[in-house]
């Protein structure tokens, strides 16, 4: 064998061994990999829960499904940085939806001032969509396991973390719900809330609610309505966070109510019950509260459905 062939054999061996090792590690990626990956490994879905991390953590498909008597609900909400309403998220949702004509699906869209805002104080909103450069705007494959496209290009940690996760407290479930298993003391809660409020106070000074994003929300509602019923909800948050939101976007719920009428998508505002529910950090519902909220949303959806069936009284 020539020295060149020997070297090529060595090189080919290296390529095969490293590719096989990587593939084996990718196969191990599960709900602990990160808060997003698993959602890009499941088959296309019929009914979706959409929004940012508040919805990802706060709306539990299993509870909602139990109330509604259906098992096709899937949480496809991400974070404020990756899934505010806009063209990129709309396209990602389109990819995740199962093919075929179907008008019996349901869609729960969580809205709040931040998910309809842009971070640039001035300038065209279309040039200020940070999610366009992230997986939201770039990922083409959203239903494959293992998802090489995601793991190679958008997974944000070293790959050894797929085998040894930083924490076992956060787990993405098969139905897309982001389960956070932490018990926090009142002191820890206050510290978490303060930490969470720091960036949001900064956002409140710099960000603005965007008509551009709102247009895409309305467009999304119109598209989803062809497949089933669309419901808008505003999830409860800690009173301090709510006060900040009211300062940032006064009367946001009234605006949402108006959009609901325009788009014929019922709206449920749960911020009136802020004090009833417990969050982990001022904005993300802890598990028991999330269960309660999911149940309330489910019951309200049933009522809305009955009302629709009965027609205007």
């Amino acid at each position: 064998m020539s020295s060149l062939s020997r070297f090529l054999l060595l090189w080919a061996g290296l390529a095969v061994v490293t590719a096989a090792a990587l593939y084996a590690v990718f196969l191990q990626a599960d709900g602990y990999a990160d808060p997003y990956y698993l959602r890009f490994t499941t088959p296309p879905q019929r009914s979706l829960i959409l929004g940012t991390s508040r919805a990802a953590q706060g709306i539990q498909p299993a509870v909602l499904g139990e109330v509604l008597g259906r098992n096709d609900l899937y949480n496809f909400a991400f974070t404020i940085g990756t899934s505010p309403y806009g063209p990129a998220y709309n396209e990602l949702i389109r990819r995740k939806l199962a093919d075929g004509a179907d008008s019996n699906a349901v869609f729960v869209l969580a809205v709040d001032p931040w998910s309809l805002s842009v971070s640039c104080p001035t300038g065209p909103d279309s040039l200020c969509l940070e999610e366009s450069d992230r997986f939201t705007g770039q990922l083409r494959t959203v239903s494959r396991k293992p998802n090489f496209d995601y793991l190679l290009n958008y997974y944000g940690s070293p790959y050894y973390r797929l085998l040894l996760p930083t924490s076992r407290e956060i787990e993405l479930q098969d139905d897309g719900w982001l389960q956070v298993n932490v018990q926090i003391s009142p002191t820890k809660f206050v510290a978490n809330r303060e930490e969470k409020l720091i960036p949001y106070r900064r956002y409140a000074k710099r960000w603005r609610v965007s008509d551009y994003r709102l247009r895409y929300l309305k467009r999304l509602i119109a598209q989803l309505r062809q497949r089933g019923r669309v419901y808008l909800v505003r999830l409860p948050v800690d009173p301090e966070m709510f006060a900040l939101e009211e300062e940032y976007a006064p009367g946001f719920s009234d605006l949402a109510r108006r959009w609901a009428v325009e788009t014929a998508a019922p709206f449920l505002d749960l911020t009136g019950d802020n004090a009833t529910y417990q969050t982990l950090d001022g904005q993300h519902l802890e598990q028991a509260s999330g269960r309660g909220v999911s149940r309330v949303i489910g019951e309200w959806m049933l009522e809305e459905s009955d009302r629709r069936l009965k027609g205007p009284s």
Partner: protein
Amino acid sequence: MLFNSLDFCIFLPLVFLLHWYLTRHSLRGQNALIVGASYVFYGWWDWRFLGLILASTVVDYWVAQRITASTGTRRRQKVYLALSIVVNLGVLGYFKYADFFVASFADAFTLLGRPFAYATLGIVLPVGISFYTFQTLSYSIDVYRGKLTASRDFVAFAAYVSFFPQLVAGPIERATRLLPQFGRLRVFSYEQAVYGGKQILWGLFKKMVVADNCAVVVNDIFADPGAYPGSTLLLAAVLFAFQIYGDFSGYSDIAIGTARLFGVELMRNFAYPYFARDVAEFWRRWHISLSTWFRDYLYIPLGGSRGTRVQAVRNTAIIFLVSGLWHGANWTFVVWGALHALYFLPLLLTGRNRRYTEIVAAGGGLPTWRELWGMVATFSLVTVAWVFFRADSVGEAWQYLQRMFSTSLFSEPVFSGRLDALVTVGFVLLMVAVEYWGRRLEVPLARVEELLPQWSQVVFYYGFAIFVLLGAGREQAFIYFQF
């Protein structure tokens, strides 16, 4: 195209196969392939700037021809050399410094109480421009000095200018060394290629595992230093020192290793600078190709350390300030260079700047306490200077250092992701330990071969490659691309 990208994983084997199968009997074919591949490599980032490389190649090729043809008429040779200098430095000056000078000019007027509105040109800096312009410039100067005759093979010269492994971030090669290698048919050497492969692997470890993981911690902390205690800022400064070392020396290792795959030997660019016992030794071990470039083409022509003390101080100051500016059009780099000049001058003036020429504990074993102290002190001084290098402005760097050296320096480091940072520190320690252990070799990892039987060495290197792949942090662009 980045060395640590999937694109390069496909590109490199393809060029390698073409080089050794398609063009192995033809020097012209080999060189043409290198030029073509190099232009694809560069054009992958932005094809529009290929014209600049081509222009630089054509100008210096022609200038050198004219200098050689004008032998005997020194004045004419000088004119041609001046043309090369004006074109190369003009292009560099326009793309790299125009906006900086406009802004600095306006700032100076503002300071004098006469502010005026201005607009910068918003010029995009072509990747690697500082590297290839210095390389082509050295060629013209060497031909002018008679160290080299002008190349009569344009393709070989174009390969010398654009050789993709070192095109965008060095090592900055000298024509006297590299050009002759494009003048003879390259023959495949198994040993050379395997050694190159090991060097690439070690370079990838330094870049992807050490530098990219350090970057995660460093970027967060440098983005908002006011939010952290001094101890956290110290940690970030130290990690940045290892980030920039891992990033740049890793790139150099990958470049040198890749060149070896094609039968080309590039000069060494780093020789364990963090084991240096004083700043003078540090500069003999850090970015060697640039330091020696400045030494040969600027410091010595200025008079070097000969002449009066004032002249020696002046020349040293010029070298460090120009070196700072070479890195970027920002006052932070100027301050960084000035700090190093301040560190270096006492050694020069007391005649102790060549005290350490051998690697520490060259005979083996551990350094003496005195050497250890020298290493720690040098690393500390260098790390303080890196804060200016990393910060966006001199004011920010100053505030960073003020906060770092406050009483909070003795508090517990607080920041999110401490567990990951701990793993990163582990990677850094592993790199330092392996480099110390193998400090007498160019590829320190190769020292493991002393311990392992031959049959298991392949298994070790395959295992190490998997370790690199799994430990790699989020992909970051190479820091020195911006220079």
